[in-house]
C-alpha cells in the first residue's frame, strides 16, 4: 500500500470509489447487499496449458510429448485455443456467453513454492513482499457490508470444507467455516455469551478461541440444518468432496443465505507424476460441479446475483517432466462465470515461443483480476496501480 491513506481510509471518506452501488450517497442508506462471490481455489497449482489448450501451436505437442491432449480431442473454442475434453459440461455455459476465460494470469518474479505463492495470491502482495492482510479483507469495505448474524447474512464469508481462509484474514470480516455439507455449527449451549473478561489479559490464542465461539453462537442461530434440508436440490453434482461442497454452496444460496463471499476448494492439482488421469478427473469434477451449480441457481433466478471465480497458486511448467507429470510453473488461465459475465476469451495467451526456463511468462497480473472484481462486482476501489481487466464484467 502506498501513501498515507489506506483504501479503507479513502472509503471512509467516501472518496475514490469507481462505482457506487453499495456506497451511500449523500448520507442515504446503502442498498441491500445482493450478490455473492464464489471463490474456487484449485489447490496444488492447476496445469493451465492442459486446461485451455493452444492446440494449433506445434510447440505445444513438442513440450508435451506424452501429456499433450490430441488435437482432435480438444474442444475447439477459437482458432488457437480450446478446452480439455473433460471440461465439456461447461459448453452450454460457454454458448450462453456466461463463461469468460482470463488468459495468462500471474505475477512478476514468480515464486514456485506452493505455500509462498498461494500466500502471494491470497494477500495480493508483490513476490518479494510479505503482507499479512488477505485481499478480500483489504478490499471489501466491511463497514458497508450488511452486519453478520442475520438470516440472510450469517457471516460475511462462508468457507466450505478444509479450505484456506487466507484471503479473508487480517481485517474485520466475519468468517465462518462450515463442513462440506454446509453444516457443522451446533448451538454451543451451556455457557452463553461471547466470553466475559476474567481480569487477566487474553493471550492472542485465547482471544482467537473466544472470538470464534462468539461468531459460532451468532451464526448458529441462522444456519440451521432444517433450513438447508428443506431446499429441493436436483441431481448432477459430481461425487466427491468438491461436488458436495458445490452442492452445499447452491443449497445455502437457495435457502436464502447470501453471504458476500463463499469459498471452497478443489484438488489436489499438484500433478508431478502420472498427470493425465488425475487431471482429467479433477477437471471433469470441476466442470460438472460448475454446470450443476449454474442449473440449480438458474431455476431460482439467482444466477445473476452470483459470480464464480477460480484461482490457483501457479500453473505448471510448460515442459512436461520425465514422470509423466509437470512441475511447479507460473502463469495460468482462470475461469469466471455468472449471469452477469460477458463470455469469451480475455487477455493474451502466453506464447510458447517465449518461455523463460521452460516456464510461461504471464501476460496479465492477477491483481488486475482482483481490481476488476472490486471495481466491477463490489463497486469499490481496486488495488492501487492495478487497472481492472476490462471486458468480462460490465463496468
Amino acid at each position, binding site marked *: 500500500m502506498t501513501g498515507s491513506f489506506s483504501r479503507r481510509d479513502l472509503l471512509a471518506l467516501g472518496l475514490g470509489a469507481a462505482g457506487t452501488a453499495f456506497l451511500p450517497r449523500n448520507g442515504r442508506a446503502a442498498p441491500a447487499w445482493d450478490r455473492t462471490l464464489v471463490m474456487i481455489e484449485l*489447490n*496444488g497449482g492447476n496445469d493451465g496449458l492442459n486446461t485451455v489448450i493452444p492446440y494449433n501451436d506445434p510447440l505445444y505437442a513438442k513440450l508435451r510429448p506424452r501429456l499433450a491432449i490430441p488435437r482432435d480431442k480438444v474442444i475447439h473454442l477459437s482458432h488457437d485455443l480450446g478446452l480439455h475434453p473433460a471440461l465439456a459440461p461447461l459448453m452450454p455455459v460457454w454458448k450462453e456467453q456466461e463463461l469468460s476465460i482470463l488468459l495468462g494470469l500471474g505475477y512478476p518474479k514468480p515464486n*514456485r*513454492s*506452493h*505455500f*509462498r505463492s498461494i500466500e502471494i495470491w491470497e494477500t495480493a502482495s508483490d513476490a518479494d513482499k510479505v503482507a499479512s492482510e488477505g485481499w478480500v479483507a483489504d478490499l471489501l469495505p466491511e463497514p458497508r457490508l450488511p452486519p453478520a448474524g442475520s438470516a440472510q447474512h450469517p457471516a460475511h464469508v462462508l*468457507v466450505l470444507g*478444509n479450505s484456506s*481462509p487466507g484471503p479473508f484474514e487480517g481485517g474485520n470480516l466475519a*468468517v*465462518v*467455516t*462450515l*463442513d462440506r455439507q454446509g453444516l*457443522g*455449527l*451446533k448451538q*454451543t449451549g*451451556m*455457557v452463553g*455469551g461471547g*466470553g*466475559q*473478561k*476474567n*481480569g*487477566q489479559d*487474553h*493471550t*492472542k*490464542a*485465547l482471544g*482467537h*478461541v*473466544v472470538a*470464534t*465461539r462468539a*461468531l*459460532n453462537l451468532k*451464526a*448458529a442461530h441462522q444456519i440451521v440444518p432444517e433450513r438447508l434440508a428443506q431446499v429441493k436440490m436436483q441431481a448432477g453434482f459430481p461425487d466427491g468432496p468438491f461436488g458436495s461442497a458445490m452442492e452445499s454452496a447452491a443449497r445455502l444460496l437457495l435457502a436464502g443465505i447470501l453471504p458476500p463471499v463463499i469459498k471452497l476448494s478443489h484438488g*489436489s492439482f*499438484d500433478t*508431478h*507424476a502420472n498427470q493425465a488421469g488425475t487431471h482429467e478427473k479433477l477437471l471433469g469434477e470441476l466442470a460438472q460441479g460448475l454446470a450443476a451449480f449454474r442449473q440449480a441457481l438458474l431455476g431460482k433466478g439467482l444466477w445473476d446475483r452470483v459470480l464464480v471465480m477460480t484461482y490457483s497458486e501457479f500453473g505448471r511448467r510448460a515442459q512436461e*517432466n*520425465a*514422470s509423466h*507429470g509437470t*512441475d*511447479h510453473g507460473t502463469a495460468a488461465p482462470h475461469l469466471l462465470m455468472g449471469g452477469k459475465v460477458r463470455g469469451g476469451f480475455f487477455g493474451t495467451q502466453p506464447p510458447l515461443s517465449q518461455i523463460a*526456463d521452460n516456464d510461461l511468462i504471464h501476460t496479465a497480473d492477477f491483481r488486475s483480476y482482483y481490481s476488476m472484481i472490486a471495481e466491477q462486482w463490489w463497486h469499490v476501489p481496486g488495488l492501487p496501480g492495478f487497472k481492472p481487466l476490462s471486458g468480462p464484467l460490465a463496468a
Partner: protein
Amino acid sequence: MKRLFLLIFLLLAARPGMALTFDEARHLLARTGFGSPSRYEIERLLQYSHDSAVEEIFGFVIARPFTQPLSDLDQPLPGRAERQTLSDAEKMDFRKDINERGLALKAWWWGEMLATDSPFTEHMVLFWHNHFTSSLQKVKWPGFLYRQNLLFRDHALGNFGDLLKEITHDPAMVLYLDSQANRKSQPNENFARELMELFTLGEGHFTERDVKEAARAFTGWNFDPRSGEVVFNARQHDPGIKQVLGQNVRTGEDVVRVLLEHPQTARHLVKKLWLEFVSPEPDEAELQRLAALLRDNNYEIRPVLKALLTLPAFWAAENKGSLIKSPVDIAVGSLRLLGIKSMDGKRLAHLGKALGQDLFDPPNVKGWPGGQAWITSTTLSRREQLLRRLARGRESDGADPGLGAGYNPLALDNPSAMPSLADLDREANPRSVATMKRLMLAIPPVDPVAETGISLRRAALQLFLDPAYQVK
C-alpha cells in the same frame, strides 16, 4: 525492607534448583505431552527440580512403541507382476485390504498415544511427522508409513543430521516427493525443493537454480518395488558436478552436507521447536543462541531441547496459555486426563480427522499449519461436542468406565481415594472446583464457573467447555 527484597530475589533466582510447584509441573507436562496431564503424572513430578524434571521426561523417551500394530502391516508390497495376475475381484479385495491396513495404521498410532507412558516420545514423533511429512494418500502402502514412524522413534531425541540423511532414502519419503521419478535424463525437483524449503533452510534462502542442481544430485536413488527398499541405481544417476548454494557437489549426500553446514538450517529448526514448545513469538536473540548450540553439538537434539525447556521464556507467565491445543491434545490429552488409557483406535482416528488432524495424512507437504488455524468455527464446535461427550462418559465404547475407573485423576478432595462414578455426581463445593481449575486449565477460565448447586461432573463440563481449555 531491602533485605526482604534481597531474600525474595535470591529465592526467585534459586528457583531452577528447587522443586517444581504443581502449576509448573503441569505446565512442563502439558507442553511436552498432550496439553492436559493427569493428576497422577503431575504429582509424580513434584519431587524434582526444573532441570531434573526435564531430564526425567527425557529419560522416559523410548524407541520401541508400547503397542504393536497389526502383525502384517509391515509385510512387503506385492510386486507389479504379482498384481497383474490378479482378477478384477482380487484387485478390488487388494484395494480394500490396503484401505483397511491404512486405517489400522492410524488406529495403532492413536492408540499408542493414549497408552504410552512417555507422551513426550509421541510428541517428538509427531513433531518429526509434521516436519518430514509423508501421506498415506500419496504413498498408498501403509507399511512404509509405519517404517517411517519407527524411524522417527529411533531419532526422536537423537541427531537431526542423521535423521535428515536417513529420510532421503526412506521409502515413504521417496514415494511421497517423487524421488521415485528423479532420473538423470529428466530430474524431478519435488524432493529437492521441499528439502530446502521445508526440511532445512526455509523459504527465501535458496534459488531456483539450487533446486534444479540439487535434484540432479539426488538422481538415481529410486524405490525398488521388488525389494520394497530404496536403492541406488547408478544408471539413473547424473554424476556431473552441480552447484548448490555456491558449492560444487556430486551426490545427494554432498547436498545434505552442504545444507547442514549452512547456518540457516539450525535457525530454521530451532524456530520450529520454539513455536512447538514455547510460544508463537520467538525471541530472535535466543533463537541465535539456540541455533549456535545446535550446531556446536553437531545437530544433537537433546541439548538444544533441554536448553529450550529451561529458558525463562518457557516458564514465563505471559506465555502460559499462548499455544492452541492441537486435535491430538484435545482428543488424547482429554482422555488421558480422565484416566482413559484404551479406546477403539479407529474411533480416535476418525475423531482426529474430524478435528483437523488426520495422522499419516497431513494436508500437504508443509504439514499442519497449527496455531490459530486449528480453531475454525467448525473445528471449535466439534471440539466442544467431543468434550461434552467425554465429560458425560460417552466416548468409551458405550460403557462409562472413564470418570469412575481406577485412580481418578479428578479425585478432588482426597487424591488417594478412588471415587466411583457416583462420586462425580456428588455436589461440587468451592474447594473441589478450585482443584479442578488448577488441574484442567493453564490459565483462569473465561466464563464464570458455578461452584455450588451443581454436580462435580457438571463443574468438569463447564471447564471443558471454557475457551481456556483450548489453550496450553
